[in-house]
Structures are given as C-alpha cells and as structure tokens.
C-alpha cells in the first residue's frame, strides 16, 4: 500500500465514522436504479459497480414538498471566434437547451471556466451568448476566467463570490475556489499572459496547488451556515471538487479537510462542481459530491483517486466534438430533486470495463511533465 492510499484510508476513517452515511434525504432511489438498469438491459453488469452507481440520479429532500429545478453549465472554455467556433457552438447549444427546459428551471448556475485564457474578448463572448438564457443566472469563477487580470473583468461582468441564497427550503452557496492560488508570478516577473499560460495547463507544474477555499472564505462559510438548521438541505457550488481526487491536476481544494470540518454538522450537504469535465460521484462524511460535465471537452479520468462510488462514463469518440460533453439538469420529482447528466449521446455510463473511461487505463503508469520544471519556462504563450 503506498503513501497516498494510506492517507486516503486514514482520511476515510476520520471523516466517515462507523455507520455514518449521508442523510437519507439525499438517497438515490431504488426506483430509478431499477429503471435505468432495465433500460440498459444489464442489471447484473450494473450491479458489479455496487449500489451507488447512479450518479445521474440524486434526490434531495425539499422542505414543504415544494418542487423546482435548476441547471448547471460550466467549462465552456471559449476561445475568440476567429480561433475556434467549436466550443462556442457547444456552449450555445447548452444554453439554448437550458432555456428550452419545460417547465423552466428556476435558475442557471454557471460553474466557471467560461473563457479559455481569461481574455476579455472571450469573457465578453461568453456574456453575450449567455443572454440566450433568460432565467435567473448565478456565477462562480474558474481559473481560466481569473488569472489574466486577477478577476477584474470576470467580476465586472458576473459579480463577486462567495454568495448564498435560500430557495424553496434549500440553502445554496457559491464558493470561489480559484482565486487564492500561491503567487508563482511576481518573483519571476511574469507577464499576465505568462501567468495565465501556466494556469491554463491542467498538467503544468508551475501554478502548484492553486485550488483552495482559503481562511477568509472558510470563515465566511462557517458564519453563513451558522444560521441554517443542521438538518436542512445545503447545496454548495464550487469549481473544484471539495475533496481530494487528484491534486496534480487540482482535482481537489487543498483545504478540503477544513471545509468538511465546517460542513460536518449538516446532515444533508451536496457539492456540485466542475473542472473535472467528467462523470464523478463521491461521498465523504455526510457530504455527497457530483462532478459535472464540460461543454468543451472531456478530461480523461486521473490515473488514480477516482472515487470507488463513481460509476464511470463511457469512453468517448475523440473524432466527435459533441461527444462526452454536455450540461446538468436537476429536475424535481415530488418532494425530491433529480440530477441528470445531459450528455449528447445515447449512453452516459459504461456497462463494462472495456467501454469505460477508467477501464481504458488499465496498465497505465504516468509521470508529471518535464519541460516546465525549470526556469525560464517554455509554454508561456498560451
């Protein structure tokens, strides 16, 4: 057992005490499990993934039996139109589909990485195509939106984070997990474009552990939740996952343990996050976590750390830009909310390892990249 695995087990022991599970109010329904398994015609195959593979169906108790729906779109990674219209086309498609929801969603949460390089042209383009969506819109930033001008343009267009609001018995919280990265640019006298270039490389080694909530925001979170009953639903939106999945790609927030300390007393917490561009599901302590799709492109599953509760998405066709991407629709059913991946293909989940994004990585061992480890750096153009 390696050090990482030992650490993960220790964390699990600490945070998931014997018998402790997320509150029943966020349980996945057997009805949906059976329904989907029968649809796939492979209940036995699905069962091999365990009881919690149905990450596309999450039920959250809603006070007073009120029902509503909301939509998630993130990771559009827009380039200026003269560079690439492919990502624009997919973002437009997602926004049109959100607007066409019937009955309409109560709001859209945009989960960050609207732009690819934080360029004002890209952010303005995003703001323009977001006009397609007429319902209420709330925003949290991604690192691609931030590190060219340190969030100035983003905040001018979409406001500041963190924020919270209560809606039909649920407390919604939007965190900023991107702006508190360590300063890797001042000492090396990087230009804003150089700073952004390093931030935009997922597998770069220069920007380091930039994903974090930060002491000040942790305090804000604690204060904001203090007025909320501990058995009432809380939904936390974040760009990065609020647990440790794969730190080298910032598939985490570095201070996730502190986040969990604050959330631990609340029995119905759901984290909805972007950044990972893939189907993901996890439970830690009393918190459930759902990773959402990008509209731009899917990331491969990391070489390790994929939560065992995740039922992996299919391997997608790299020749089809519309494959393996999409958005998220959280719809109400009776007293509950159901989360559904809107992936623009027939099958979302793999029924067999040979078709799975994780099963594809058998026998794969990876090393971090090498060309950006020394100064001066290459790759600072992007």
């Amino acid at each position, binding site marked *: 057992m390696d050090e990482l695995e030992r650490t993960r087990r220790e964390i699990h022991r600490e945070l998931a005490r014997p018998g402790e599970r997320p509150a029943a109010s966020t349980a996945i329904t057997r009805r949906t499990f059976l329904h989907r398994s029968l649809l796939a015609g492979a209940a036995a195959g699905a069962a091999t993934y365990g009881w919690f593979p149905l990450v596309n169906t999450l039920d959250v108790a809603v006070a007073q039996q009120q029902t509503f729906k909301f939509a998630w779109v993130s990771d559009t990674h827009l380039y200026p139109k003269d560079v690439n219209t492919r990502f624009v086309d997919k973002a437009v498609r997602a926004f049109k589909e959100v607007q066409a929801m019937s009955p309409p969603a109560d709001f859209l949460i945009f989960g960050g990485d609207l732009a690819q390089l934080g360029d004002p042209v890209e952010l303005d383009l995003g703001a323009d195509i977001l006009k397609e969506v007429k319902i209420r819109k709330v925003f949290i930033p991604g690192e691609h939106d931030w590190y060219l001008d340190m969030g100035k343009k983003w905040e001018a267009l979409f406001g500041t984070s963190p924020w919270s609001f209560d809606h039909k018995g649920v407390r919604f919280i939007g965190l900023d997990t991107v702006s508190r990265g360590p300063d890797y640019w001042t000492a090396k006298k990087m230009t804003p474009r150089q700073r952004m270039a390093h931030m935009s490389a997922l597998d770069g080694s220069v920007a380091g552990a930039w994903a974090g909530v930060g002491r000040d925001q942790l305090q804000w979170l604690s204060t904001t939740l203090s007025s909320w009953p501990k058995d009432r639903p809380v939904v936390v939106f974040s760009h990065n996952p609020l647990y440790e999945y794969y730190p080298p790609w910032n598939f985490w927030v570095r201070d996730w343990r502190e986040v969990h300390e604050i959330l631990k007393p609340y029995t119905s917490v759901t984290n909805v996050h972007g950044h990972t561009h893939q189907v993901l599901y996890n439970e830690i302590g009393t918190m459930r976590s759902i990773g959402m799709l990008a509209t731009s492109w899917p990331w491969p599953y990391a070489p390790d750390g994929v939560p065992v509760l995740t039922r992996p998405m299919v391997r997608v066709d790299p020749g089809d830009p519309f494959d393996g991407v999409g958005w998220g629709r959280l719809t109400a059913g009776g007293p509950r909310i159901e989360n559904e991946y809107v992936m623009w293909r027939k099958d979302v989940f793999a029924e067999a390892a040979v078709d799975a994004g994780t099963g594809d990585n058998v026998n794969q061992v990876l*090393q971090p990249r090498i060309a950006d*480890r020394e100064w001066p750096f290459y790759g600072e153009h992007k």
Partner: protein
Amino acid sequence: MNAGPGVAPEKGAGGMHRTRQALVALGGAAVLLAAVGVGGERALAHKERHTPEQLKAFEEVFIEQVKLGDLLFHGDPDAEKRMNTQLSRTGMACAMCHPFASDTHPHEFPKFQEQMNRFATLRDMINWCIEKPNEGVALSADSDAMKALEAYIVWSNRGSKLDAGRH
C-alpha cells in the same frame, strides 16, 4: 543541458547540434561521434567499456527529445515554428485531452484502431489526432517532430505494462 531556452533544438538544426557539442566535450569521442552518425560513417558500439559520462550523454540525447516533445504536445508555438509543424488549427493542444500524456496508451500499440478501422502504430494514432480533432497537418512518420512526440508520450508512460493489441 537544462530546460531553459537551449533545451529545444536550435532553428533548422534538429536536436543534433547541441547533442554533438555535449558529446565532443566528453573527450575520447571518436566512437561516440560515430555513434551519432557524424560524417555518415558506420556507427560503432560496445567496443569499449561505457563511462558514466557517456551514459549521461546518451540520457541527455533522449531527454532533450522528451522535452521537445513535451513542448509540442503542449502547443508551444516557438517549438512548432522551430520544427516547422502545425499540429492544430483549433487552439487545442494534445495535452488538453491528454494531461501527463494520459489516455495515449503507447504500451498498447500496435493494435487495431477503431477510429481508423485498421491496424495502427502509435505514430498513426498521433497523426490521426493531429488531423481529425486538431485539424492540423499530419507529420511525416519519421520526422524529428514525430520522434519527439513519441519520445514524450512513451517517457510519460514509462513503467506502464507492455500490452500490445489491447483495446
């Protein structure tokens, strides 16, 4: 050698200019120079015991290509200009779908490749990605840029279990 500006080959010289400098500096270089093909003479190997310096030089030849491949894989325009390549016209770089060169599976080639509907090598797959998703210009299979990309991909996946033919 380091990862500074000198890492990538000088313009028009491939990777060999700096490589030669490094090897000449080792002294007793006649055999080594032959090994890198200077003057078109037949390369000789294993006629004398290897020195640590020689092994280091061999390693540097390899790592220089890995670093160049890393830059090309991450869409570095200077490296592309130097190597006279156009690996993408969409703004996408290889690494945007393959961080750490993941999901490239060099250890599974050669194999039947579904997208091409034929038996394929890693170099065939690299060219497919350049031409289809990236809408770039395919490389000659034995070009310096292709060798560098292959070097980076294989180096990134070192330690993976050789498993040719696996889908």
